[in-house]
């Protein structure tokens, strides 16, 4: 994992939400990103349900 490209992606993500005027979602995003980074770091998420591919 290259930290600089990940940081750039995070920057782009915040700009995406800011551009759309959805500031209210940014606190939620921060929490999710911390969780996501933990998942990446621990190699978690070994299972997703079948319908997850249709919906999410």
């Amino acid at each position, binding site marked *: *994992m*290259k930290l600089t*490209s*990940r940081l*750039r*992606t995070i920057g*782009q*993500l915040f700009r*995406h*939400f800011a551009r*759309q005027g*959805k500031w209210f*979602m940014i606190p*939620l*995003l921060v929490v*999710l*990103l911390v*969780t*996501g980074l933990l*998942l*990446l770091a621990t190699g*978690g*998420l070994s299972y*997703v*349900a*079948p*319908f*997850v*591919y*249709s*919906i*999410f």
Partner: protein
Amino acid sequence: MAAVLGISGGYHDAAAALVVDGAIVAAIQEERLSRHKNDPRLPFRAAAACLAHGGIPAAALDRVVFYEQPFDKLERVLVSSLAVFPASLRQFPRAMGSQVGDKLWVLDELAERLGVARDKVTTVAHHRAHAASALFPSPYERAAVLTVDGVGEAVSTSLWRGEGTALTPIGQLEYPHSLGLLYAGLTAYLGFEVNEGEYKVMGLAAYGTPRFRDEFARLLRVEPDGWFALDASYFGRLADAELGFGPKLEQLLGPRRPPYQPWDLEGSERDRRYADIAATLQQVTEEVMLALAREAQRRTGADALCLAGGVALNAVANARLLRESGFAHVFVQPAAGDAGGALGAALLGALELGDPRPAPLASAALGLAIDPSAAHALATELGFVVTRADDIAGDTAELIARGQIVAFCAGRFEWGPRALGQRSILADARDPDSRERLNRAIKRREPFRPFAPAVLAADAAQYFVAAPNAMTPFMTTTCPIRDEHAGALAAVRHVDGSARVQTVTAAAAPALHAVLGAFAERTGVPIVLNTSFNGAGEPIIASEVDALAFFLGHPIDALVVEDLLITRAPR
């Protein structure tokens, strides 16, 4: 002049497609190489295979285009999860884990693992990729484009005006209103696997009567112009990724059918009821697609319609669109589902870099070739009898005419879910015994799933109504069998009198074309049964190793690899 790699993946049917100087060089689904059916993982094997086939090192790529916009997707998942809170409570951590732990970083991962500069990796919107995959490989300069699937980022259904290299959006519908999710939810309710069992529902529908229209009117409210609203409360607010539908659907239609139970459409009242539900679903799907197509024609004035998205793989609905929508031509490329998004993404990238549209798609043989030398060596080592034939088409036709079942490999494998004569199992379409043996010993399909015929394109009209047309080379539609041939073609005739016919030209599938010609010389009939070269639940064969492994484990009579005839040693 550019080299562009398109990528789809992360959900189901991952694929890669390589476009060089505007020409489609290769397009491969990951499942063919990973041997994992509907493989959703990012398609690094397929990407490497496309690049190797094109002789393009990854570092020389001008662009890599992913078929979806991850931030838009994350936004939709977040907003829709919050909108149905607390129904989404149980699913939320898993959905967010999938998004933030994995999918958010997809462009970084592509750059790093492909070895491409990060700024060369871009995205296009999911339905624009679908629309591009439908229009640009089509033979039409001007066409209406309709894309219908489960959901992309937020859009589930979109209409486009296609002209030359331009795609202009003219209408769209957003999640949760989705024909694809309706079909997927009912597929799960009927006990089939989502993203795989939809074909089975389509086959089952022909055995039922659409007598649940009142109940379906509650599930889906359809406007006269085709736009519709799905009542998500019947689908658990689409918040249950385990199931795909909610208790309210079972209150409306009765208890779900447990999966993996054998079907008995003659003896079981319960199974006939499920067939009636499938028939109603199919009828509603067709009517919505028809209304959308008519709206597309009204808005564009075009005489050709190009379709993509998972729902465009509904061959029965496509036939009805050609018959009743008012369009003179309907085109569906062979990988119309999510895999096709890779091709659309690559084509959009190439156009943006100034390359021209590709030539109309003449053949689905966009995969990897098979190696007869390696097959010869391996078959000999396994103790099979290997003969290099002077007239392999004639020998194959002779075996089929004698009632034998032949696995047939020729050239590069197919793009999309259909076997089109490059990796096919062939049998005599006139012989119900061949069909029975094929089904019992090899395919193990449900009894209501039909087999398909391949016919010489020049003779198709004699046997099938409305064939050939722009879809028949790719088996993305069905055609009625003419009454006078219905008895003779019993092995490939569905209960509704139709067949998912493939019309074969020398340009599209030269080896199968030669077999059909030789079969016609011997029998007077230019038609063989053509089913995919794979076992139940497996991806279609790709390499000579896959083919010989299959031949070892299944009772087919002969295996053809290019000009090699491989048979079992007499006992």
